[in-house]
């Protein structure tokens, strides 16, 4: 049953992510992206990673996507005032996308050669075990990434402050 659910949800993920690209209206795009993230949450639940699932739910679906939607509603983009993209930009986009595709296919090929990854502990995704791992063996990278986020936050605040002074 687990496999069939996986294939069903995986198909949905692919369909929704394609809809993100193909829908003309930016708001519809973001709504499809929210659905895509929801299917990811289901994937995490299927992998028995409850904590990751619920955090993905809160952070990506509940916070980041609300901000995306918020910004898009503020900008109020629609077809009429969409800037015309030149042919050069379109070609560059195609090249960049193609490069990404080649890289991804290459890396997936490398993965399939190795033996499939087997988790030693199927309950690793539960909140207690994950916490012990994060604050034990992976303490340094965890703290470093939090400092990175803090730097980004302070930088963003600083940028808005400077602009205010220049205006006033």
């Amino acid at each position, binding site marked *: 049953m687990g496999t069939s659910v996986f294939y069903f949800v995986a198909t949905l993920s692919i369909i929704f992510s394609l809809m993100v690209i193909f829908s003309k209206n930016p*708001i519809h795009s973001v*709504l499809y992206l*929210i659905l895509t993230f929801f299917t990811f949450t289901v994937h995490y639940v299927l992998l028995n990673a*409850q*904590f990751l699932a*619920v*955090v993905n*739910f*809160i952070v990506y*679906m*509940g*916070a980041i996507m*609300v*901000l995306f*939607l*918020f910004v898009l*509603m*503020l900008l*109020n983009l629609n077809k009429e005032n969409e800037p015309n993209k030149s042919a050069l930009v379109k070609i560059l986009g195609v090249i960049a996308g193609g490069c990404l595709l080649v890289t991804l296919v290459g890396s997936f090929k490398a993965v399939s050669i190795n033996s499939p990854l087997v988790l030693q502990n199927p309950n690793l995704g*539960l*909140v207690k075990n994950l916490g012990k791992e994060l604050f034990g063996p992976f303490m340094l990278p965890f703290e470093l990434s939090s400092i990175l986020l803090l730097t980004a936050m302070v930088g963003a605040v600083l940028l808005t402050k400077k602009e205010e002074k220049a205006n006033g």
Partner: protein
Amino acid sequence: MDINFVIEKFLLVTILFSISLVIAMYSTYAERKVAAFLQDRLGPDRAGPFGILQPLADGLKMFMKEEIIPSNASKWLFMVGPGLAMLCACIGTAVIPWGQDLTINGRAVPLQVTDINVGVLYLFGVVSLGVYGVMIGGWASNNKYSLLSAIRAASQNISYEVAMGLSIIALLLMTNTLSLKEIVAQQHGWHWNVLYQPLGFLIFMICSFAETNRAPFDLPECETELIGGYHTEYSSMKLGFYLFAEYINMFVSSAVMATLYFGGYNYPWMDTVAGLVSPNTAALIGTVVLFIKIFAFIFFFMWVRWTIPRFRYDQLMNLGWKGLIPLAIANIIITGIVIAVVNKF
């Protein structure tokens, strides 16, 4: 799968769903009666004795009204909006423990739909999802006022979610678990979390007011500035769903506050009472106590609504970012230090 298990969960879900709807229905009546009481009026008194049939009359009216979908609205999303608001309001009740286990024919029946080990985070996720109903509905209406209201709702929810999450962290430092069942079990008798986390409770409560869009935080539907806010273009039962979702949200957040901070189904001298009556009766008394707490919170929500005027938008943002978030962080630090000191000695 065990057939008894399926039946018991099905019954529990059905009962919870109907209780939420009935309580939401009678909250509209209670709101008008409380408003009348606070303003020295009578309130609704025509339909039935003391007007207790008023919610039924209102519901019927909502169903019979003409349904209008604006011609330039995004039709599909216009319909999704109220549905999403109702869905997010209703799924929160799934993880709340409504009482101690009942024993029926030798089977322990938990009065909780599911005890997931990330229960608190699940509730938090449901709360953060709740804003989509307002945002999608407001945007799909294709109305400037609705759009402004949707934007307001988004920024307000995001801002107060941060403080809410931080206030919960201080609580979790003490409980050491994310399972609501265990959090309630730890508050046996008088050991309610509000006694240990008064500041955390205050922040959590203020944030619940903001997350449910209740006065004084009802800026998304501020009549003086935005006509009706996100539901300006809505009519008939779609409008009814939006209004209904607000009352269900109020019920769920009252239940969450009672569960996290006010001991859930626990009450003082419960062990003495449990000694006198059968275990099942004792569990049901606990459930009744929980509902009394919930009703007290709902009354408090209404009391505040008819007492305190609405915030201005900059006041709202200042309170959230400059008032509540630093307070919540200070609360976490103090709780951490106290726990470290207590564990040391």
